[in-house]
């Protein structure tokens, strides 16, 4: 059985030999044009003039286009309000306002400055505080309310008040936004895009250019990383290239430089969350009030859903008897913030983990003790603030196991002693958890479809709406199909994702790629198996079909479960008759049966009503916990992560090797978010950290010297394909254990006050906080 094995990534050989083809690796047509994008010179205001006449005089410049050239200049996943090219109202500095179609990148660089862009400027809104003051809101969510929050806060033995603040995060996918659009016959376009959401890209291209959806095909072979940054925000760049392709009737390629990509595209939402927590002497949280504020940037994009998820994860792994969780998103003059692995979940989860660290420090107890007594229970204390029961709850088991295997207790003792010596170094240790809700919280997105084409040599081509961005979804599809037919996974080939084969698909996002598309693949395989079983029965009947005589049509209801697929053969368990899988295919073909399976899958039982707080928000939870130990240089505030232990509950993993890579990758990405990844804007609101020289994602030297990752055995998840659990986002939440470990370290020097830091905990943030104590 292929499922459960760590088979290699289906693109691994291509990747290591450099033969995997990404968008900008596609050979260029002779008449192809390069699309350069120019951004707004101001944060807020109006474009008054775009004059490309000087540029157009230069050899190799074919067109300069602006808002007036776009037939329908508004798009947006939730609310169509964002311009493809801005004009009347500028949302943010460096926002795309103008396209230059030219021979190549060199030509674009040479004529950039010849395009005159003039704008009037008004005072921008740049921070959450500023936006709150000016009443600039994008959306407000209904609060989650349980119990008597006022009374519980009043009667609590202790209360703490504060604000948790975290910064944004650049996706830093290695392949920047890229797309090539080929004009076809009859006004049709073929769009190749580095997109997590080919369907939306198809729709946005078609709509903005005044085409029918059926005139546009969007194809995604793979992405060089996505992380959410290509969920909604690949679409308008494809529309820009589409515009040029249509205007010139020539293939058009748009591949942003890293600098432009970082300046022009949205990032993880910064949050500022105000809270008031009540707790007893033991540290049991009796009341929690949180007012969540997300910085949505200039446009709505996916912000309402991200805000929802932040609220859904404000409970973390902990039961809240009385709670009030409210969420608002502000509109600012920044790049429109968007999906990023975790999708608001990390910002919600980290808030309560920070609060718990404070509670522990306040009560002079170890934070693990506080976490343990507040964890969701197995039999009781297991209802979330949004009325979903935490079923098959493994959190207590997970925390306890990790507490033991990470040698938490003894290390805390060692650390105390270490911090008493004056070595110039300070250490801290912390365990945090993740209980990540799996499903799109927007119900209709929980659907997928798959096409399974069996060829007569026994090999199979599978197409789904899932897009491959390195996470290995294609490999898992291979394994699911291979297991269904009991053949080798190498007999399955995953085809490029394309809207002509799989349409009306959802983005590959919310960690759900495998769940939804794997569910569809499995269904398609099962229907094909029913056909093949039927053919097998007919073939072995006394009728004697020879390909001329017609076999009866498949009865989908017939119970043929005794016909089994085992190791490349099809066997009747009752008669012991058997046939090679491949031979049976031929029989089916000769008898005119379809060997294509198409299936539609929707996640069952979902449907959360935001107004009544009823219904099921999530299909299940993926759980995990991490213990991180850090060391701070007291002279400089420099931070080193010494050791990390992670325990994840991924159900029955389809591919443990690939899943381990997801866990280490997500953790380090989360660690980067809370430590070195600092988005720096100048006073005018311009992002200055827009390349790896100035924006520091973790380097190989930042990977903890001791990095233990284990998976918890859990076979209970019958709600998902092959009893697996989604893995993409949940481990990112665990990166925050590094940040809470910093808080823990600081608590050894903070005296009577509680350590207070923002995220990311840069060297500067840490040193300035240490300096506050002296």
């Amino acid at each position, binding site marked *: 059985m292929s499922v459960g094995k760590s088979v290699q990534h289906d693109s*691994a050989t291509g990747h290591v030999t*450099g033969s995997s083809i990404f968008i900008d*690796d596609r050979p260029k047509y002779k008449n192809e044009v390069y699309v350069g994008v120019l951004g707004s010179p101001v944060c807020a205001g109006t474009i008054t003039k775009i004059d490309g006449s000087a540029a157009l005089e230069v050899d190799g410049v074919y067109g300069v286009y602006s808002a007036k050239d776009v037939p329908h200049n508004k798009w947006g996943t939730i609310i169509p309000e964002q311009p493809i090219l801005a004009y009347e109202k500028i949302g943010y500095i460096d926002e795309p306002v103008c396209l230059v179609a030219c021979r190549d990148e060199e030509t674009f660089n040479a004529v950039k400055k010849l395009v005159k862009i003039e704008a009037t400027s008004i005072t921008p809104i740049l921070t959450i505080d500023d936006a709150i003051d000016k009443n600039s809101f994008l959306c407000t969510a209904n609060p989650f309310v349980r119990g008597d929050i006022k009374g519980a806060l009043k009667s609590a033995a202790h209360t703490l008040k504060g604000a948790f603040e975290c910064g944004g995060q650049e996706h830093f996918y290695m*392949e920047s936004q890229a797309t090539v659009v080929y004009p076809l016959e009859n006004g049709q376009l073929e769009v190749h895009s580095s997109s997590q959401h080919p369907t939306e890209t198809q729709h946005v291209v078609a709509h903005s250019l005044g085409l029918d959806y059926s005139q546009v095909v969007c194809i995604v072979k793979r992405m060089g990383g996505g992380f959410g940054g290509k969920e909604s925000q690949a679409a308008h760049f494809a529309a820009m290239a589409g515009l040029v392709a249509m205007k010139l009737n020539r293939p058009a390629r748009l591949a942003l430089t890293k600098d432009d990509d970082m300046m022009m595209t949205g990032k993880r939402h910064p949050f500022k969350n105000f809270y008031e927590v009540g707790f007893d002497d033991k540290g049991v949280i009796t009341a929690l009030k949180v007012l969540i504020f997300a910085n949505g940037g200039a446009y709505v994009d996916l912000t309402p859903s991200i805000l929802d998820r932040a609220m859904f994860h404000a409970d973390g792994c902990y039961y809240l008897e009385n709670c009030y969780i409210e969420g608002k998103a502000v509109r600012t003059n920044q790049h429109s913030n968007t999906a990023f692995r975790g999708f608001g979940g990390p910002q919600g989860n980290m808030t309560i983990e920070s609060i718990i660290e404070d509670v522990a420090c306040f009560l002079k107890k170890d934070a693990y003790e506080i976490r343990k007594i507040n964890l969701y229970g197995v039999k009781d204390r297991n209802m979330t603030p949004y009325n979903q029961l935490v079923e098959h709850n493994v959190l207590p088991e997970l925390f306890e196991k990790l507490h033991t295997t990470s040698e938490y207790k003894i290390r805390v003792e060692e650390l105390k002693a270490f911090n008493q010596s004056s070595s110039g170094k300070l250490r801290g240790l912390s365990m945090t958890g993740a209980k990540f809700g799996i499903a799109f919280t927007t119900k209709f997105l929980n659907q997928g479809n798959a096409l399974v084409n069996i060829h007569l040599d026994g090999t199979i081509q599978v197409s789904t709406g899932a897009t491959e961005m390195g996470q290995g979804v294609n490999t898992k599809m291979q394994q699911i199909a291979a297991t269904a037919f009991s053949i080798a996974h190498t007999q399955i080939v995953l085809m490029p994702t394309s809207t002509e084969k799989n349409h009306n698909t959802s983005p590959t996002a919310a960690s759900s790629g495998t769940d939804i598309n794997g569910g569809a693949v499995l269904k398609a395989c099962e229907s094909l198996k029913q056909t093949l079983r039927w053919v097998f029965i007919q073939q072995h009947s006394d009728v004697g079909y020879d390909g001329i005589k017609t076999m009866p049509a498949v009865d989908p209801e017939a119970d043929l479960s005794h016909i089994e697929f085992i190791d490349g053969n099809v066997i009747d368990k009752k008669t012991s008759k058997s046939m090679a899988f491949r031979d049976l295919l031929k029989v089916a073909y000769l008898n005119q049966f379809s060997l294509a399976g198409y299936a539609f899958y929707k996640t069952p039982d979902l449907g959360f009503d935001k107004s009544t707080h009823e219904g099921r928000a999530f299909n299940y939870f993926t759980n995990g916990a991490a213990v991180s130990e850090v060391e701070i240089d007291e002279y400089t505030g420099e931070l080193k992560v010494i050791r990390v232990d992670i325990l994840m509950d991924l159900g029955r993993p389809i591919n443990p090797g690939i899943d381990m890579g997801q866990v280490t990758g997500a953790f380090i990405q989360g660690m980067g978010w809370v430590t070195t990844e*600092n988005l720096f804007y100048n006073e005018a609101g311009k992002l200055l950290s827009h390349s790896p020289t100035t924006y520091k994602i973790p380097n*190989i030297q930042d990977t903890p010297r001791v990095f233990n990752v284990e998976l918890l055995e859990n076979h209970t998840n019958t709600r998902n394909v092959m009893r697996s659990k989604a893995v993409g986002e949940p481990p990112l939440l665990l990166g925050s254990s590094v940040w809470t470990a910093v808080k823990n370290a600081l608590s050894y020097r903070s005296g009577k006050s509680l350590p207070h830091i923002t995220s990311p905990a840069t060297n500067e943030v840490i040193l300035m906080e240490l300096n506050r104590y002296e």
Partner: protein
Amino acid sequence: MPLGNFLRNSEGLSGTKIVCAEGDCGACTVLLATDTGPDGKLTFKSVNSCILPLYLIDGAQVITVEGIGKMEGMKVDLSEVQKKMIDSNGAQCGYCTPGFICAMAGAVESCKSEGKPMTEKKAKNYLTGNLCRCTGYQPIIDAMTSVDLDKAEFLKERYHNPEWIGKMKSIKKTSVEMKSKDRSLFLPATLNEALRIKSQDQDVRLIAGSTDLGVVVNKGKLATPKAMALYHIEELGKISHDTANIYVGATVTLTQFEEYVENHFPEMSRMLHIFASPQIKNQGTLVGNVVNASPIADTIPFLLVSDAVVVIQSESQTREVVLKDFYLGYKKLNMTASEIVTKIKIPVLVKNEVTRLFKVSMRKDLDISAVTFAARVVLDGKKMTSVKIALGGVAATVMRMTAIEKTLTDKEFNAKAFNEAADTLDQYIKPLSDLRASSAYRMLVSKNYFTKFAKEINDQIGGGK
């Protein structure tokens, strides 16, 4: 044109990826040989092809990711590093992978040549210049440490071709001059020739490794219509020493410099640990770092406190300037446009001295510093007979703190004096706030470094509490 663009656009070798175009992510890494080792075989080193102008590698041999395994049509016989990368799930999205594969192959080539095993520490050091956003690096570390060096084929054997090597060497001995209507390029083979060109046309821009220039050109901040590259000049590529000094020629790379110091002055190598990626160090030069005169250059603070001397030549004269007197202001140097820095003389460490280099940046490795601090104290018992302190990142140039040095010199060491000296720093430096750090942070770290250095001296002389 940078090598990376040439490979992708002109040669159709799209395996090499360009991400940052500034030598900071390693996706464009290829292996480059511009010379042979003692065995007469090519020495391949990893470099960033995105910032490497083609004219700097005239005659050199390049191996791209396509040449790491053995390709035969569409078939490929995978190399040891490629196999291990697959086995360890070291590639996810695949965009950084070609760069990693080349850097890994280069590391294997080096370790194998030196006959040393691949440790985890080494693996990380060799891959410091490559960013990956998917894996968290652990799978790549696993891949690298599981490589069986015996099974790995020597690339210098596979690609050994005496004819190519002969050609490469003869090209390097030849002067090249290329001119068009608005551009010119010189690759002189002798120093005299270079000095003549520089005296005739002072707009000619000198190029050593192009690790800084390549970036500013890529980002459209500078055009170099007239360029002169020095690497054909054999004598400028030499490094040597006598009892007093190390002499480093203008085109000696940071890697060559580091290795030389490690072999001959191991006690100095700790101080000279340069915080850049192998790719940058394999291409960038020490003299380039000094002449570029960045206030946050990594090598300058140490060179300042060791009283390194810059040797400057023009057609008419050769003169020597102590580094302290070489910097006149932000990127302003004590030299004329017709002069060339031909080498740097670095005094070797003496006994009874405590020399330290501290640096802080946003990320520990492969990052530009916010503050650098170097100090050198010569001790006679507890008496400090010489005190030299340099701070970087706090002013327009790296600065020697001469006033503070004076107050400490010829005094008995005590930690309090250092702290008091640190408290006077406000009088001499006014650090800027920028995206790397605020002024307040830079000031605080500068002060703390005085405390830290005092502690190190204290430990050295066993001064106790």
